[in-house]
């Protein structure tokens, strides 16, 4: 009897993160969990690790119901969850990090000698004993990942959940991880592996469970499914499909009016370039956190100064104010943080950029509200009284009445309903048709396929680890191509061992 999940559900407010998740895993099995953005993988991992409570359902381990109240409780039962965002402390040394969950003691005092020895033994298995004594913040991303794994191993896991390796591992690292997991397997440990890297999944996992929209769709033998099959299961077909595929215009000449030769992506330390044509919509795709947000924000001048050539003239943009005066607009999907002024009225929210930044009087905010089909009682009411979709329309209205030449949008339709989405798409397409350009990030690939089919000139660029991994045009814009480029198959870095030991920057 291994581990079983029965009808696990979890919702955050109105958002359903997991619904009725079902899964059974045998002892000594290595299970991959595969799913797109927001499919509920990480939530499931946190439920097992005791980090968050579930709303419904039960988890059975060796026939007994387990119910952890805290990560500490879970660790007592040797259920270990590791994830990059929740693991290492940069201000502590490697050995301190490895042992922090269970510090060796002599009497009541920390046994420094045993602490070091314990860490040394684990690190020796990974051939990384040279890391002892270093602070974690000094390590490269791949080394940090290995230390994180060491921290999990030292706790002698019976169930190990590995969530999202976002750092690239070198070939030797992968071999070591592979060996460690095989070792765990022989001891009957259950390993749940959440990753987007297909190569690693095929190398290490026995079986795979597909998740989509918070549901577990099915479990398959890893060897029985090809990569394409898995991806299409993961992407699925939607009921309200957008019908954009195959309708794109081919080989259209673009009339480039903005050139950005050096766009820094600080998260990955890479530099990208982009040429933007008049009337163009550029969709930015990729898995979350691969530099899309950096790309758009860098163009807006909020990731340090940037040189942009507009209409043949080189302009320096250091901050958002300068970007706005050059005719840029920025709409964020995170309305509460970057969009609305919550304690202000609708008309103030509409007029803010035009009046306070561009110093033009906006005569009739009501007209703008009506133009964008905002549903409201009167322009004086607080913006928070509107639904999310209508709030976003107000934000869009605010920017469009400034007549922007380049609209930058970071997942602008996040969390708004289908109708409002379609309205926004039409507004964006209309803006582009007037000879302006739109750059839009979306975590929903279908949305990008759809919106790029609405105008003559369009592209979808796919980002992976801070670089543009593919540029799709015309008929090439479809879900399969976007998914494939989001997770490049041959992305395993083929660097040398010295490179790994030196801790190359990722």
């Amino acid at each position, binding site marked *: 009897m291994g581990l079983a999940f029965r009808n696990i559900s979890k919702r955050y407010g109105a958002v359903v993160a997991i619904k009725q998740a079902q899964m059974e895993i045998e002892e000594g099995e290595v299970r991959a969990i595969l799913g797109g953005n927001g499919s509920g993988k990480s939530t499931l991992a946190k439920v097992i690790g005791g980090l968050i409570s579930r709303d419904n359902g039960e988890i059975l381990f060796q026939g007994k119901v387990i119910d952890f109240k805290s990560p500490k409780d879970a660790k007592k039962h040797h259920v270990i969850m590791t994830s990059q965002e929740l693991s290492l*402390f940069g201000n502590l040394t490697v050995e301190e990090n490895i042992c*922090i969950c269970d*510090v060796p003691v002599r009497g009541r*005092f920390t046994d420094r000698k045993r602490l070091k020895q314990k860490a040394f033994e684990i690190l020796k298995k990974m051939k990384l004993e040279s890391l002892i004594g270093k602070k974690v913040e000094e390590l490269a991303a791949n080394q940090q990942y290995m230390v994180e794994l060491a921290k999990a191993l030292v706790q002698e896991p019976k169930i190990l959940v590995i969530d999202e390796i976002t750092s690239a591992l070198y070939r030797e690292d992968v071999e070591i991880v592979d060996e460690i997991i095989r070792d765990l397997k022989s001891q009957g440990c259950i390993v749940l592996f959440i990753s987007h890297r297909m190569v690693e999944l095929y190398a290490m996992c026995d079986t795979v469970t597909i998740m989509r929209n918070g549901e577990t769709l099915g479990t398959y033998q890893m060897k029985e499914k090809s990569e394409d099959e898995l991806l299409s299961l993961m992407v699925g077909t939607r009921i309200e499909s957008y019908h954009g595929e195959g309708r794109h215009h081919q080989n259209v000449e673009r009339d480039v009016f903005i050139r950005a030769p050096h766009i820094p992506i600080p998260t990955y330390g890479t530099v990208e370039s982009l040429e933007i044509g008049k009337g163009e919509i550029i969709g930015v795709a990729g898995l979350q956190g691969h530099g899309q947000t950096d790309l758009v924000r860098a163009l807006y001048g909020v990731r340090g100064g940037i040189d942009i050539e507009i209409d043949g003239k080189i302009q320096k943009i250091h901050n958002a104010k300068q970007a706005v005066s050059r005719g840029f607009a920025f709409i964020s999907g995170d309305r509460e943080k970057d969009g609305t002024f919550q304690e202000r009225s609708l008309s103030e929210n509409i007029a803010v950029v035009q009046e306070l930044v561009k110093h033009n009087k906006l005569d009739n905010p009501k007209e703008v509200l009506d133009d964008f089909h905002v549903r409201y009682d009167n322009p004086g009411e607080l913006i928070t009284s509107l639904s999310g979709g209508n709030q976003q329309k107000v934000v869009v209205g605010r920017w469009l009445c400034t007549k922007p030449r380049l609209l930058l949008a970071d997942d602008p339709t996040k969390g708004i309903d289908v109708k409002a989405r379609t309205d926004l798409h039409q507004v964006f397409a209309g803006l582009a048709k007037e000879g302006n350009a739109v750059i839009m990030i979306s975590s929903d690939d279908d949305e990008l396929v759809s919106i790029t089919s609405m105008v003559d000139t369009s592209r979808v660029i796919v980002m992976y680890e801070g670089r543009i991994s593919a540029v799709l045009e015309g008929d090439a814009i479809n879900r399969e191509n976007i998914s494939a480029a989001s997770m490049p198959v041959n992305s395993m870095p083929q660097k040398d061992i010295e490179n790994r030991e030196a801790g190359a920057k990722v």
Partner: protein
Amino acid sequence: MTKVKKVMGWSAFPSLLLFLIFLGINGIITGGLSLSFFRSFIATNAAAICVAIGVTATILVAGTDISLGSIVSLVNVVIVTLCEKGFSVTAAVLIAVGCAILCGMLNGFIIGVMRVNPLLTTFATSTAFAGIALWILPYPGGSIDFSFADWYSSNLLGVIPMPIVMILVLVIIWIIVMSMPAGLQLFALGKDVKKAYASGVNVVALRFFVHTFAGLAAGIAGVCISANTCAGSPSIGATMSMNSIAAAVIGGVSLNGGIGNIWGGIFGAAFLSILISIVVSANLSSFVQSFIQGLILLIGVVFSIIAADKELKAKIKSIFKGGVK
């Protein structure tokens, strides 16, 4: 070389350096350093150093405590009032320190268990504690038996001055805690609460502990200041809260938590104290005094933050290297 580097890289090093420099300046102004100067310096400023130790502990877990000055005042008025009521000095001191620990525990309970923001909590409790102090002793006054002052200026075992013993009590407690698993977990908590929770750290207990410790530190500070003045004043600790936070920052303790140690707090407070004594002994008009004091404080804080900035250091280093070549 590596040892020198290690000392230079120590987060409390800039504050130690500042302290020594200003100690030298003070020596030049007053004409040489004497043992009696040290004795009076430490007797006057042991309280500030104790409060800095307490506040450093709370800042290390990414919290803060601005109520310690009020606790010092409270301890002072409790000792004076109890002595006037006929209690023995020992009993009065023990009761007052007990009160201080209770105040710290109250802070710790609200911050740790009820998860209220530390700044807001201690802002509120500081007003409350100061209010109680005023209630007990509305006007400066009262006196304590001079045997208390004699005890304070005596030496333990004939060698260690009593004010230093007071500071050592706190330092020893802290070193003991640091050598337990809780010491490691404390730094982890300071770096990131969520990660610490995910790593099985008992966040509530640690927060409760640091605020209780800070309460004790303020209690001992109150004892020192009472013994040094032998009089009561309900606002005697009023300026200490903010000064101690500045001391911690000068001592290389990151306000974001997780970086620094109590030595930084100690040297930072010592630096601030010597600074005040220099400005006072320079015979400036009292209007200019606080301006100059503030100015040097600002320079001290900026200097220590620059010293802790690794990126800036690397930049300076690379410029330096380029120049040498």
